[in-house]
């Protein structure tokens, strides 16, 4: 990063500023010429098919070989994957029995229930006690309310299946991330090795590695859990190294002076001292695992995710919306609970330390009592064990009726709106993007790379873009770019003004913060359902869903960008007689601009990841490729398309980051 900054600063002084617009103009003219002369040199406009490499076939063949023939000395790769599945299956089954199915003996029809699952009363009791322990009765009410909704709306069974895979995936993800993070902290070589892999994993859409996992581990809950863990792991690794690095030097020195061995220093001193940072990682693992719920159901996870997916496929909006809301509430409850645990200071033990052990842990005692009581009552009163069906409420039919009514009465209006936007706005832009000569696009990207980071960045960007062309994904990539670009543009056009307003008005800011905090806890899929209900399938729907999902980022970064400006600068401007308007345009926006661009960067990344999800509603871009590949278990197709999406994200990231750094440097706020 610093190298990039230095290079960028050098470029600024080396290239006369007046030459820059000329360079861009030349590239634009080149693009037009190539397009007009496409009869003479068609290869420069549309990437010729005979130049493409059969990368898809290679990947497919490699995975097939891995699965069928690869041997790791003592055992084959297949045996390894089976062993992993077998090991992970046990805790998963146990959690599922405990929370939803109960412990049974025998199979199928002859199965005998030997121990019932935790009853709904017991489960709600336990989470409420946990919230009381972690914070206060207000959190208790919130969490209790979330779970009650799930019970009342008949989502209990599915929700508990989902929860059982979460309670196993999260500790595994946290432990794995912690260990890798500690390794990376201790061995810079290891860190250098895993950082690019982590970067790629965070940008490759989940779908892309769902396909290999599907092939290697099969279609079952364990495979889904493995995908979840892989997806949720990288932030934990990052947070761990970051948190360990932030432990004050003096604390580490104290540990060494106390004569700690390496292990003691890590586990007794550094990890506890880094608790705050680590807990942020844990929270992220939980949220990402919940984000995966629906996607994981594509390779065999049951529960709420599968309910949503089925509903989406059969356009049963009522059921889909209820399950979506249940996932959202689960996410909110677990998020708030884990944050409360993270913020919970170790409490002073009350003076009476001579009290018996059981009285020192009143919450543990209460939870045990709740479980025992609910279990006993469960035997006597079935309604305690299982939420009675006759008391269940469902809004499904109501929603379906409303939809029907909306469609009958407003169909024309909605369709007209959609058609108008599509015809006048989206389709022309799409045509333009697809018509762009690939050679000119690569040239433009390379030039931007050269300006910002000289040859290294130019080569990197050109190579990544070239990969997309060479693997025959160019047209799909352009469609991706069009959808993602439009969505980003609109999200920023809406989000940045909101951010500016919020940053300047404290009252509004408080409201906006609550809203964006809530929006950020929602799993990506939750945004799809309502949009599909209104606008059916297609690019328009996809774009709206992406905007809804990504708008949080321009808002958040704009607020942050304006708020982090040194207050003395603002005071100086006010003192020298700036009006509020001048203050905004002459001081706040220019200084916040780098930060806002980081928000744009984040928006692009989020839009790309969301596009893969919107493939469900029938777009025609790279996301759709991955989705089709998943349905056909075509590893090569899925991986190549996924990597192409990742490369697009990396191109955007690598171009925007040094630009921001250079800009900050020029403003003297680096």
């Amino acid at each position, binding site marked *: 990063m610093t190298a990039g900054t230095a290079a960028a600063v050098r470029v600024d002084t080396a290239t006369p500023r007046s030459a820059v617009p000329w360079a861009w103009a030349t590239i634009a003219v080149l693009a037009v010429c190539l397009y007009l002369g496409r009869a003479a040199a068609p290869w420069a406009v549309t990437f010729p098919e005979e130049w493409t490499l059969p990368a898809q076939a290679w990947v497919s063949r490699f995975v097939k070989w891995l699965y069928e023939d690869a041997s790791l000395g003592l055992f084959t790769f297949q045996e390894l994957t089976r062993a992993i599945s077998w090991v992970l299956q046990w805790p998963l089954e146990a959690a599922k029995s405990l929370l939803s199915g109960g412990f049974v003996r025998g199979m199928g029809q002859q199965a005998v229930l030997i121990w019932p699952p935790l009853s709904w009363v017991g489960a709600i009791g336990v989470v409420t006690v946990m919230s009381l322990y972690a914070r206060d009765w207000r959190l208790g009410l919130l969490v209790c309310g979330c779970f009650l909704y799930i019970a009342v709306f008949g989502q209990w069974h599915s929700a508990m299946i989902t929860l059982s895979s979460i309670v196993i995936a999260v500790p595994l993800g946290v432990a794995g991330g912690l260990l890798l993070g500690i390794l990376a902290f201790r061995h810079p070589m290891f860190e250098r090795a895993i950082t690019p892999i982590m970067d790629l994993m965070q940008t490759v859409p989940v779908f892309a590695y769902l396909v290999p996992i599907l092939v290697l581990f099969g279609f079952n809950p364990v495979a889904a859990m493995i995908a979840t863990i892989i997806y949720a792991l990288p932030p934990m690794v990052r947070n761990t190294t970051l948190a360990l690095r932030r432990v004050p030097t003096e*604390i580490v020195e104290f540990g*060494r*002076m*106390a*004569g700690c061995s390496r292990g*003691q220093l890590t586990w*007794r*001193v550094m990890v506890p*001292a880094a608790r705050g940072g680590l807990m942020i990682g844990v929270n992220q693992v939980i949220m990402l695992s919940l984000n995966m719920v629906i996607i994981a159901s594509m390779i065999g996870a049951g529960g709420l995710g599968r309910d949503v997916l089925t509903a989406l496929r059969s356009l049963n909006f009522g059921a889909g919306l209820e399950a979506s809301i249940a996932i959202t509430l689960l996410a909110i409850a677990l998020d708030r609970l884990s944050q409360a645990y993270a913020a919970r200071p170790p409490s002073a033990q*009350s003076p009476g330390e001579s009290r018996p052990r059981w009285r020192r842990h009143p919450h543990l005692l209460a939870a045990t009592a709740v479980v025992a009581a609910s279990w006993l009552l469960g035997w006597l009163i079935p309604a305690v064990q299982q939420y009675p069906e006759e008391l269940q409420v469902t809004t499904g039919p109501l929603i379906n009726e409303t939809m029907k009514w909306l469609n009958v009465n407003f169909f024309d209006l909605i369709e007209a709106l959609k058609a108008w936007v599509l015809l006048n706005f989206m389709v022309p832009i799409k045509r333009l993007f697809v018509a762009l000569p690939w050679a000119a696009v690569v040239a433009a990207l390379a030039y931007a790379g050269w300006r910002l980071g000289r040859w290294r960045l130019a080569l990197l960007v050109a190579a990544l873009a070239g990969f997309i062309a060479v693997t025959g994904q160019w047209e799909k990539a352009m469609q991706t770019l069009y959808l993602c670009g439009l969505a980003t543009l609109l999200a920023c056009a809406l989000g940045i003004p909101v951010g500016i307003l919020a940053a300047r008005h404290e009252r509004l800011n408080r409201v906006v913060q609550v809203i964006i905090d809530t929006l950020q806890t929602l799993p990506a899929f939750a945004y799809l359902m309502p949009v599909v209900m209104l606008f059916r399938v297609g690019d328009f729907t996809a774009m709206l869903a992406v905007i809804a999902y990504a708008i949080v980022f321009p808002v958040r970064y704009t607020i942050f960008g304006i708020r982090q400006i040194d207050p003395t600068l603002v005071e100086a401007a006010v003192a020298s007689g700036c009006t509020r308007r001048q203050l905004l345009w002459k001081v706040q926006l220019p200084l916040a601009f780098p930060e806002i661009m980081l928000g744009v960067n984040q928006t692009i990344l989020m839009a790309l990841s969301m596009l893969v999800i919107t493939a469900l509603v029938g777009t025609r871009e790279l996301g759709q490729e991955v989705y089709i590949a998943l349905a056909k278990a075509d590893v090569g197709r899925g991986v190549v398309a996924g990597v192409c999406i990742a490369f697009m994200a990396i191109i955007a990231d690598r171009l925007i980051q040094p630009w921001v750094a250079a800009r900050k440097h020029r403003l003297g706020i680096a």
Partner: protein
Amino acid sequence: MADPASRDADHPVRGTRAVKLACRGLWKVFGTSADRFQAMLPGTPSAADLHGAGLIAAVRNVEFAIHEGEIFVIMGLSGSGKSTLVRCLSRLVEPSAGQVLFDGRDLLKATETELIEIRRHKMGMVFQNFALLPHLTVLGNVAFPLEVQGVERQAREARAREMIELVGLKGRESCYPRELSGGQQQRVGIARSLAVKPDIWFLDEPFSALDPLIRREMQDEFLRIQSVLKKTIAFITHDFDEAIRLADRIAIMKDGEIIQIGTPEQLITHPATAYVSEFTRDIPRAKVLSVRALMRAPDERVEYAGQVRAEARVASVARQIVESPQPHAVVDGSSAIVGMIDRQQVIDLLVRQDGGQERPK
């Protein structure tokens, strides 16, 4: 620069007590090309030489010896290399060259396991920002060094309680660090560093993060504890007043080098350089100088108003001397008269200080 032995020549405890910790030709240079420094040895490369090689010398050719039971204060402005020096003494920072002799044994030759043993049983350290473990109670923090050694719970908690009582925090055992004030936190730091009964006690600016009033209180507390335990101490500070108050001897450090080592009195009466006299200028001399430093030769014809001890600080006997027109006799430990002192001498000393005017010599 004179050799260290001659500089401590007239120190009271030297000769009677053994050297506990000494360092010879100690260097610490930071920078990527440390091997280029090795090529410059032996010899004393100048700061410019090192800078040319892309190196920063934080500790430059340092020599001193700390005697058993002595409070040895290392004083210097921020960035002068004090923290680096004290960390070299315990090898928290790996010295680039030289020797650190602990009980006559070169620490730099100790293996990692030996070093862990030495730190576990023989060294204690107090940090500027306390460095308490946030997840442990006061009791847990103080017992931590013992826990690491594998001491039984009962034994280590008993010892920890003893230490907590010593620093005056009894009743606070189950508090967490964030529930304590800065001064209380540093008391915990002190208790913790003493829990293992260390032979040598390092304190790196232990009171610098505290308010002036609390700082004074802590200094008194520190002297009280030292009067009970009589540890060998390396105490770092950037505050010359603090150094004067606490030190048996002070080493003044500048740009990684030690400029002068001596008792507070020696630094005031015989500053080695202008830099040292700059520090000592605003120090109330009467509080530092002993009667011995001020007295004149005895005169048998004079009638003495009374007796004062030669080792007493002038400030502590000033009133007695000034109130009498007659001079006082100065006596040593065996009550023999070694000199005399009169009111004019004391007044001159006090006035020069407060009036801020140097008297022409």
